[in-house]
Structure formats: C-alpha cells, structure tokens
C-alpha cells in the first residue's frame, strides 16, 4: 500500500476521521437544505417565479445530475459513517446505569440517530412524492394543471395540491421538526468536530445553530401551513 493510501485509510478508520467525514457531509447537506428552502419559499412570490426557478433547475441537465449524485453520495457517506460510529458507541457500553444522570446533553443530541433515521424515511417519501412517483397524477400528461404550456412542470400547482392533503402536511411538519432537532445539534457539532468552535466562537455558533435550525423549520413549515389555511391556493 502506498503511504498516501495508508494514511487515508487510517484517517477513515479513526474515530475523529469518521467524525470529520460526518461533519463535512453534514455541512454540505445543510447547504442543500438552505438552497432547497430558498427555492421553495419562492412559492410566496407567485406561480410564475417558482415555476421559472424550477425550469431553470431542470434545464441544468447534466449539471443537475452531478449535483444529485453528489447529494446522494453525501447522504450515503453521512449515513454509513454515522451507523459505524453509533455501533461502536453502543458496544462501548454494554451495561447501562441504574439511573440516568444526564447533566448537559440536549435531547436533540441524544436522539440524533433517531431524528436522522426519521429524516431519511421522510426524504425517501418526499422524493417519491414530488420527484419520482406519480401520486396525484403529477406526471400524467392528461392532467393539465401540472403542466405549463412549454411542457415543463407546474411546480406551483403540484405543491398546492400536495400539501392540501392534511396527513401529507402533518408528516412533512413532523419531518421538519426532527430535521430542526437534528440541525440544532448538528450545526454546532460540525464546527466542534472540524476544530473551528473556539471558545470565543462557541456561543455565536450555538446561537447560529438555533437560528438556522428553527429558521429552516419555520421556512419549510410556512408552506404547508399557508396552503392548509387557504392563504395560498
């Protein structure tokens, strides 16, 4: 094995190496979450804006696939390394304590693996719902309200109809809440794991973490709420 490969292998196998990979992929995914949110919020600017935006994304063609595969890789790495770390953590303490003495750990930090798993399920559902499957006849050429004259999707109408179903919105809101929980710990953790959260920055990072997590929650949830309440139709 060349020394370079050997060093890299040791890095991947080490606890901190794995943590860094989880942190870096987490950072990338947070970037995606922010972009996704900003895109979706354009619903409030009217059908034309969001539909044009969606068409622009679609027209990226190959580049879109590069981004999609990149995202997929990040999600996969984030999950694989998290599972490895979690399994090691579980075996590191077989016998539990009689009483729980948690003093500082937040609920969000303790349930990271569960919020993560739920988010994964949510993402699969979300992709099936809007990108892959044909629920609501989104991809049926005969349903004209989901198509624009130039042949691209009427994303605006797809969102309105999707979120009008109360249980779809409810699951979405639950998913967003767990994402918020995941981010509230994950955002600050990234900076600690990457060695950037200096004592002076720790407080601002913590605040930014909460703003980011709740901002993502509020932004994303505002859409189904607006639709359910009839503000958007």
């Amino acid at each position, binding site marked *: 094995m060349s020394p370079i490969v050997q060093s890299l292998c*040791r890095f991947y196998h080490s606890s*901190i190496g794995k943590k*860094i990979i989880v942190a870096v992929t987490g950072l990338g995914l947070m970037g995606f979450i922010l972009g996704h949110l900003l895109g979706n919020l354009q619903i409030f600017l009217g059908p034309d804006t969001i539909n044009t935006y969606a068409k622009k994304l679609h027209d990226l063609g190959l580049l879109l696939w590069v981004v999609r595969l990149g995202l997929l890789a990040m999600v996969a790495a984030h999950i694989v390394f998290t599972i490895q770390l979690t399994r090691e*953590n579980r*075996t*590191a303490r077989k016998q539990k*304590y009689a009483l729980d*003495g*948690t003093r500082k750990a937040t609920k969000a930090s303790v349930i990271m693996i569960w919020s993560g798993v739920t988010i994964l399920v949510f993402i699969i559902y979300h992709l099936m719902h809007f990108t892959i499957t044909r629920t609501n006849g989104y991809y049926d050429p005969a349903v004209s309200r989901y198509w624009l004259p130039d042949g691209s999707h009427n994303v605006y109408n797809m969102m309105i109809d999707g979120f009008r179903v109360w249980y779809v919105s409810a699951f979405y809101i639950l998913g967003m809440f767990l994402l918020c929980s995941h981010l509230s710990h994950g955002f600050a953790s990234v900076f*600690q794991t990457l060695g950037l959260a200096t004592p002076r920055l720790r407080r601002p990072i913590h605040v930014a973490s909460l703003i980011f997590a709740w901002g993502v929650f509020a932004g994303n949830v505002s859409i189904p709420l607006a639709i359910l309440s009839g503000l958007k139709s």
Partner: protein
Amino acid sequence: MAVSQSSLNLTLKIWRQAGPDQPGRFDTHEAKGIPDSASFLEMLDIVNEGIITKGGDPVVFDHDCREGICGTCSMVINGMPHGPKRGVTTCQLHMRSFRNGDTIWIEPWRAKAFPVIRDLAVDRNAFERIQQAGGYITVRTGSAPEANSVPVPKDDADASFAAAACIGCGACVAACPNASAMLFTAAKLSHFNLLPQGKPEADKRTLAMVRTMDEQGFGNCTNHYECEAYCPKLISVETIRQMNRDYRNASARETAGV
C-alpha cells in the same frame, strides 16, 4: 462557631461483582447514623466496617489520596460519576449533599474499555496505553536547556495547565453516553501540544494517541459534552476541539508527507 452535625440513615444499592467475567448485581445495604460531615468514602468505610464485623465481604472500591487529586476513586452515584456535586471527586463529596432516608445507587464506571475488576473497582489500563503511546515530550534527563531560555506566553502556559489538571480518573468516559475517552485524550494532548516544548512532536503525538485511544474499545465523541459536565477538574471540551483540529492537520500533513 460550632459546625452543625446531623446524621443520616440511608439505603444503599451497591453493585457487587466477584470478578471481570462474573455476573454482577445490586445488593442492598443499610447505612445507619452516618454523620453528614463524613465524606462519601468514609460513609462506605463505616458500611464496610459493619460488613466485616458481621463476617461478610466488604465492598471493594478504589481510593487513595482522598483529597481529589490522585484520580483513583471512581464510582457512579445515582447515575452520576463522582455524584451530584460539580467539580469534585467522590472522595471530596460529603454526606451533607444527601438527605436522611435517601436511597443511593452506587456503581462502577461502565465501559467496555474499563472492565470491572471487583465490585466498584475497574481496570483503567486503557488510559495508560494511550499515554504511553505519546503522552510525553522526548527529553533526555540532563539535556534540558536553561529553563528561562524559552519564554512561554502566559496564556499558553495557563491553557496548558488547565488541560494538565486532568487527574485521569475516567469520569469523562463514565459520563459519556458513548463511553468515549476523547476528553481524557484531548486533555493530555492539549497539555503538551500547547507548549512550545511540545510542538516538535505534536503531529506524531496526536496521531499516536488518537489511534491508540481508538484501539481500546472506547466509543466516539458525539458532542454531548457530558464529559465536561462531570469532569472533577472542569476540563473544557475546548481540548477536544483542539484535538480534532490537531488530528485533522496531522493527518493531512502525514498524507501529504510534509
């Protein structure tokens, strides 16, 4: 100025385990008339004295200096490593922190890397191996330069000292939901890596100690910071940040061969 003294009657649920491979269980012991000015270990002394006179086997627990510096005592009290008071070891915990009639659960540190030897005593040799891997500055006795020839900025010296205050008790591992030893390892690394004397070997030390830590069967840090909350010497997770940074840089330099 009289010191108020009252006494407590307590029910103790103590973990008893004959050996590393034996099953363990909680036994109930009554502790009667314990003075509230006694230390927690003195309370156990009183209980043990009672067990011995009744012909039983006393509870085995590690202890030595009984002034909070040797890091020997190690027990989880009601789910809390070193008990309910912050910034103290078990030996410095006094019974005035408890109330008459309390039930107290007493267990050993629980971690795969710290096998129970007997009752409340665990084997912490994993810590030894981590330190042996690189917890030093290679200096041969007699070859040291004049002490004041290298000025050390006061802030660096103070930060190094704050990390070096670690007493190696293992409460960080016991407190961590993942039984991770990162606060311990990070404290040892920061002690040396922050000083100019420790810089020449910093990369080598960081890689060696982190890798040895990984081999011991500890879990991984997931930034719960329970370690910091239970450290009797209040070592900050800032040391873990420094270790993460140093390991990241050392790995990069090792890969690139610089």
